[in-house]
């Protein structure tokens, strides 16, 4: 009983174990799921899913299995050649456009339409709004946006939605296969934590006390140590303005979300590249500047320096005096960043641009050279590597 369902969950990428299946069966034996399908669904969910990131996946598999549509779906999937669906292009749609395609009818209509279209279509397709392929707004395909669409062969869920709409899909936005959310960033940044003993000695050091007491011929000699605190200090420099504005909001969110994790978190803004001044309040960037040298003097070299920027600019902005787009800089930016790097040996550059595009911009290459290749993409894996480099 339920064995095919169990295997379907496992094939669906869930780490459901035999223990959990047995628990579910035991619960059913105890009559817990006797009343309705809903009850059974709740029970199965409570016993088989252990991570809210998998709830959505579970909902989908459950729906597929128990509404008997798994056969039709599986058959359809097999009929579509993989290469059609391979990720080729990216598409971003405005809110307006998204709204326009928001309503496409229910699942039944969708599946029927899909079958019809499969019959009509016989070559690979990309973009556009009708055929099955990638990066389009047709309800069928992948890497596009149609919230009621059927997803095929897509890695991760793109807009966190485009799949079936059997169920309410309440847990959709908890799926962790999607790109970067504040939540998983928080978890990643926590790895930066480093505990150190600092401050007032207010904890008993039992080992040392015993040791000292023994040496003291049994006369009690109490030894205290300071409590362990998280001692990581972070200096964050964010590129702001132009293409970076979207990213900056995410970065600010993520670092302030993780703020409590660090002992000190200081942030500064720059525009495109580092020069003699940085600032804290972007609206008053011309009035309230902080000289870069002051920063290097004020914050000790135990700070970890993190730049966040798309590193996309004219190379002149990096290597020439006067190259800045905003003001006349007496010394080239490369010198300024090297000064900072000398002060802060632990430093990384996080780049929100996808890694495969880095090679096309000379400025990115330049900065990577300056940073000794310590440039990482702003993804979970990239963040992980960055944090390793900071340790």
């Amino acid at each position: 009983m339920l064995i095919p369902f169990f295997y379907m969950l496992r094939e669906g990428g869930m780490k459901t174990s035999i223990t959990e299946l047995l628990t579910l069966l035991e619960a059913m034996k105890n009559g817990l799921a006797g009343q309705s399908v809903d009850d059974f669904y709740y029970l199965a969910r409570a016993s088989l899913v252990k991570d809210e990131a998998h709830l959505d996946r579970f909902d989908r598999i459950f729906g597929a299995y128990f509404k008997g549509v798994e056969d039709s779906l599986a058959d359809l999937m097999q009929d579509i050649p993989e290469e059609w669906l391979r990720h080729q292009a990216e598409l971003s749609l405005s809110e307006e456009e998204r709204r326009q395609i928001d309503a496409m009818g229910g699942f039944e209509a969708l599946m029927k339409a899909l079958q019809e279209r499969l019959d009509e279509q016989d070559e690979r397709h990309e973009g556009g709004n009708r055929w099955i392929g990638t990066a389009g707004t047709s309800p069928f395909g992948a890497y596009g946006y149609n919230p009621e669409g059927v997803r095929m062969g897509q890695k991760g869920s793109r807009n966190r939605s485009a799949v079936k709409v059997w169920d309410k899909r309440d847990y959709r936005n908890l799926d962790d296969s999607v790109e970067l959310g504040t939540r998983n960033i928080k978890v990643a940044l926590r790895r930066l934590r480093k505990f150190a003993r600092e401050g007032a000695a207010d904890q008993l050091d039992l080992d040392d006390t015993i040791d000292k007491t023994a040496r003291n011929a049994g006369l009690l000699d109490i030894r205290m140590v300071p409590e362990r605190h998280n001692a990581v200090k972070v200096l964050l420099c964010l590129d702001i303005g132009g293409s970076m504005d979207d990213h900056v909001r995410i970065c600010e969110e993520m670092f302030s979300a993780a703020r409590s994790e660090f002992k000190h978190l200081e942030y500064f803004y720059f525009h495109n590249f580092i020069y003699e001044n940085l600032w804290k309040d972007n609206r008053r960037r011309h009035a309230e500047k902080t000289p870069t040298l002051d920063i290097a003097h004020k914050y000790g070299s135990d700070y970890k320096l993190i730049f966040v920027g798309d590193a996309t600019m004219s190379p002149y902005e990096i290597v020439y005096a006067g190259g800045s787009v905003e003001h006349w800089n007496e010394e080239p930016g490369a010198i300024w960043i090297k000064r900072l790097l000398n002060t802060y040996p632990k430093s990384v550059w996080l780049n929100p641009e996808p890694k495969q595009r880095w090679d096309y911009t000379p400025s990115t290459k330049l900065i990577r050279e300056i940073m000794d290749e310590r440039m990482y993409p702003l993804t979970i894996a990239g963040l992980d590597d960055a944090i390793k480099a900071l340790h």
Partner: protein
Amino acid sequence: MADNRFTGTSSYIATDDLTMAVNAAVTLERPILVKGEPGTGKTQLAIEVARALGHPLHEWHIKSTTKAQQGLYEYDAVARLRDSQLGDDRVHDIGNYIVRGKVWEAFESEEQPVLLIDEIDKADIEFPNDLLRELDRMEFYVYETKKLITARHRPIIVITSNNEKELPDAFLRRCFFHYIKFPDKDTMAQIVNVHFPDLKKNLLREALDAFYKVRDVRGLKKKPSTSELLDWIKLLLAEDIPPEKLRGAESRNAIPPLYGALLKNEQDVHLFEQLVFLDRRTNPQ
């Protein structure tokens, strides 16, 4: 069985899925792990389960420094050392220096207890692993006195987590799991009703509308949660604010009164005020 089912209480609204998860955990005597946004009543659940089923409640609040061993027992070596220095007779019985932890207390309970392990993710990453056998077999061994402590009645264990750390698979497999999602408007109306039974209907509706509107503001660092809503309504009642005033917020160009109870972060308040200001400029009434 019928009287042993949890269905929510007069002060706690439990959705069907939550009820099912709790009842499964109670019936099979397995721990239940509860996750969810802060302020959705995770901790409250254990308290209400204990109250509804009439069981005693033992609470164990976890901090970043808590060790699994502390929940079982601690050997107070320092007290013993001191007593030995003073020549106290108690020193010969090591049992005098074994301090019982929360889990032990729950195991010794006369009737089936509810044990709350609050915010398990705060502790060290090894913490859940160290409790595997204890939660599974409901027994543990006291090495100092060479005694095996077994639970008289398997406690109903409610574990909450804020998702700060991933929990180990081996641990998760032994639990039932429930994610408390943020309540929809209907459930929220029920929740508010339970807390403020004589709230006027229109005030409640206006307050909920204003609340969800604030929650929908994009870019908020900390979205207001259920507990903040309840506080806010309490304030509205205390200040005797008429529903019409809240409707001002409805038209999107006024700030809801006493919004300080909803937004707890000065950047959020700032953002919110800016948005309202912008809105007022673009759509003057």
